[in-house]
């Protein structure tokens, strides 16, 4: 077996050194009647070529790649340059542990420092950590952070946050002394109902968490929101599920937002059936000692040269144990490395051009749909790269089947998550949709009249 370098001779020699005759003597603390259980139900080993065949066959059993997909909703299909794949697959990035010995981990550490800096520039907030598990758990960490910092247990949450994110937040707080109160959204704009928010900004509220662009793809009035929350002394946290909106829209920091959490899968990670993805958190300086997760800081070595280390570990579980700011240990470092490579490669111009293209493609789709009267765009203004397609009287399953006949996966039926949204589809368009793809989709919809 190629993964076991010991030879039988080695094993014999080593047993002699240790002073045993049978390897089983090493396991003699394990109850004898329970050890060496029968392995009959485990299939036989596969050779390397058989293994590859096996997984290629799993791939062939998947049929999604026969369709042009317009699925988004927190997972987005963007172009990934070969350089990102090739560099991130370097074994010296892929196979180390968390950089506990910084003198031999400067590669990962500097890349993380650069990642933190670029995320800080994109969010417009001074402090970014080096990763969290994903967008949904980052949102939950955002809620916990607001509760810790404010020392208040009531947190407001917009009801047009990605429903999975709300589910995760609710799971995380189920045994903690934190209460979530929802803020309504406006039925005509898809945005947060500002009057409802105002009426709920009371003294006992610790923070407000909302998403922009929200689950419907609509950009919220972040400046207005942060004016309201800061006037009431309440922390404002913005969720970003589509990181590609950051280069296109005014930054959360410039809008006065205190904390940004979200999903950065769009920065160089494949769809991967939903994981591994990349959670992130950025915040104003005053939150740094309450932040969850790893932080990389610059320092000097004993010769005064620049170097990087994990820092502020007194927040973390291995020092603080049950008093830690989070239980997180292994996170998504390699995904952050990939994002670091991706962002460096694109640079300011690449990010600006591609994010603009995402919006223009989506705006083109919306404009063409507006010419039809059997369907409409539900929320017509201030979307980024996702829109809600209202099918009106058409049944959503029937619509999806018709589109599949045309080789199209049209989007996510909102009814999956929101009962009031029967016959609505969430459509995502990125730079990878050619004009022809969008036109085919539009034509197919037009033919349903």
């Amino acid at each position, binding site marked *: 077996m190629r*993964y076991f370098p010991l030879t039988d001779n080695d*094993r014999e020699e080593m047993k002699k*050194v240790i002073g045993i005759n049978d390897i089983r003597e090493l396991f*003699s603390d*394990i*109850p004898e009647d*329970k050890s*060496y*259980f029968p*392995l009959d139900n485990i*299939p036989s080993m596969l050779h390397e070529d058989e293994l590859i065949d096996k997984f290629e*066959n799993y*791939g062939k*059993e*998947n049929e999604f790649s026969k369709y042009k997909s317009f699925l988004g909703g927190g997972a987005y299909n963007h172009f990934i340059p070969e350089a990102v*794949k090739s*560099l991130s697959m370097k074994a*010296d990035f*892929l*196979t*180390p542990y968390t950089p*506990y010995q*910084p*003198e031999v981990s400067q590669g990962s550490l*500097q890349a993380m420092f*650069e990642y*933190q800096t670029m995320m800080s*520039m994109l969010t417009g907030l001074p*402090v970014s950590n080096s990763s969290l598990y*994903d967008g*949904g*758990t980052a949102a939950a960490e955002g809620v916990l952070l607001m509760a810790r910092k404010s020392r208040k247990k009531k947190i407001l949450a917009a009801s047009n946050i990605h429903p*999975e994110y709300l589910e995760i937040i609710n*799971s*995380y707080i*189920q045994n*903690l002394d934190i209460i979530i109160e929802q803020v309504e959204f406006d039925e005509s704009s898809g945005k947060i109902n500002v009057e409802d928010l105002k009426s709920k900004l009371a003294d006992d509220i610790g923070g407000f968490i909302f998403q922009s662009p929200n689950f419907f793809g609509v950009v919220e009035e972040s400046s207005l929101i942060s004016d309201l929350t800061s006037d009431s002394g309440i922390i404002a946290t913005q969720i970003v599920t589509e990181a590609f909106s950051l*280069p296109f829209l005014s930054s959360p920091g410039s809008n006065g937002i205190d904390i940004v959490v979200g999903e950065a899968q769009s920065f160089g990670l494949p769809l*991967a*059936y*939903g*994981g591994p993805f990349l959670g992130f958190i950025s915040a104003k300086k005053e939150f740094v000692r309450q932040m969850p997760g790893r*932080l990389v800081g610059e*320092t000097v070595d004993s010769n005064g040269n620049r170097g990087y280390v994990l820092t*502020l570990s007194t927040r973390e*579980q291995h020092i603080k*144990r049950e008093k830690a700011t*989070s*239980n*997180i*240990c292994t996170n998504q470092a*390699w*995904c952050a490395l990939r994002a670091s490579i991706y962002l*460096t*490669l694109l*640079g300011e*111009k690449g*990010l600006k051009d591609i994010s603009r293209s995402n919006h223009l493609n989506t705006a083109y789709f919306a404009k063409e749909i507006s010419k039809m009267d059997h369907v409409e765009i539900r929320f017509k203004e201030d979307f980024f790269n996702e829109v809600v397609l209202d099918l009106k009287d058409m049944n959503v399953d029937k619509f*999806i089947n018709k589109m599949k006949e045309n080789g199209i*996966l049209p989007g996510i039926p909102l009814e999956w998550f929101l009962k009031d949204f029967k016959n609505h589809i969430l459509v995502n368009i990125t730079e990878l949709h050619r004009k022809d793809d969008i036109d085919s989709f539009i034509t197919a919809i037009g033919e349903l009249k």
Partner: protein
Amino acid sequence: MSKLPELIFNVSRPGKTGISVRLNQFPDDLIRIDKSKLREGIEDFPSLSEVETVRHFSNLSRLNHSVDNGFYPLGSCTMKYNPKVNEKIAGIEDLSAHPYSPVDLVQGNLKIIKELEDRLIELTGMDSFTLTPSAGAHGEFTGMMIIRKYLASQGNPRKIVLIPDSAHGTNPASAHFAGYEVKEIPSNEDGIIDLEELKKHLDEDVAALMMTNPNTLGIFEKNIVKISEALHQNGSLLYMDGANMNAFLGIVRPGDIGADVIHLNLHKTFSTPHGGGGPGSGPIGVCKELTKFLPVPTISSDGSRLSVNYFTKDGIGRIKNFYGNFLVMVRALAYLMTLGKENINRVAEDAVLNANYIRKELEEYLDLPYKSKTLHEVVFSDSGLNVKTLDIAKRLLDYNIHPFTIYFPLIIHGAMMIEPTETESKETLDNFISVMKTILKEAEENPEYLKNSPYNTPVSRLDEVHAARKLKLRWEKSEEN
């Protein structure tokens, strides 16, 4: 003079880019967002060409020590070889579906998840698994929430979780976030949980014991069956932290020795790469009574077709987006298929043999506080030496050996926790042993030399206190050349 590459921000020149992708040409008057919401530039954002980016990251990668370039006996982390073929398999494009793809179009992916669940059930003797947790600590948190929900369904969620003093810091942190108070219990002179001592702590407030087995001293908790019985008699549950499962994979099943909930680390025992700190995957296995409390989504089969349940009546809810770290699962399943029943228990046998060999060869040179049988890792202390564990660790770097885990577990003075894993040759172990002897000799003859080590690394010893005091977490423009 720094040996690190210049930061990208300092070599950036406006106008450069490293990407070329064809974009549709639509006019700007299509824009449907109010101008006030749009961004002008991204202040100070770097701009590099493709070749500069490639050189930068290639040069950075060479500053790392990794499993692929040398011995990495980092205790508790199971730094085994990460098979190359698994990377190829994880890169198969037909597996990289959108997570909201209709289930009839992703039957292959669902089969992979189901097949891995089934194999883990077989290897652990648990009733069912969820693969959604992202890492070990995430699994612990999930497992403790399951325990709490179960106990609540029995009428009382209880208040306290018992945790041995040798446990990882994630255990108390996870228990805390699941709403429990933590009570630490001391290890006995054999380095394990003392049954009688434990019984003294058992009352109606105790929800569970979180036990790492083998524990962080590399010692099997040999009273586990009796401990489990005592807990159950008290209406409490046994959570087994499976971070060290590499010690008995294919030898004994946690479900057969009394564990009610366990977590596994696919990025340890099941060979998936650590990636410099993730992504991992921390599946949770539970006994029958707890199955209905698992988080969503769950996968079920009607014989020929697999489907996904997004809602369960009793479950703890959702703890992560989508299905978890799917491509980590793919690698773990590929690993298990490669091993098959023919090789599965060789993992633990060779891992334990290697650890015992190191123990035997070094125990006359280093203090071994606990003399119980060693499984997958051995923990020495720096007692009696005239240098500290840190100095030995830093000196090892000069020999292209990654140090063992240091200063953990906390109950050992200057702990050196050595876990060789099964994927190391005898020659590698012999070299490590001889380097250790050399370093210990250096320590005797010239301790100052060790205290200033390392010497052959890209940077010399780094000032961690300076980093925390003069906090600098991002590049700032003012310092540009």
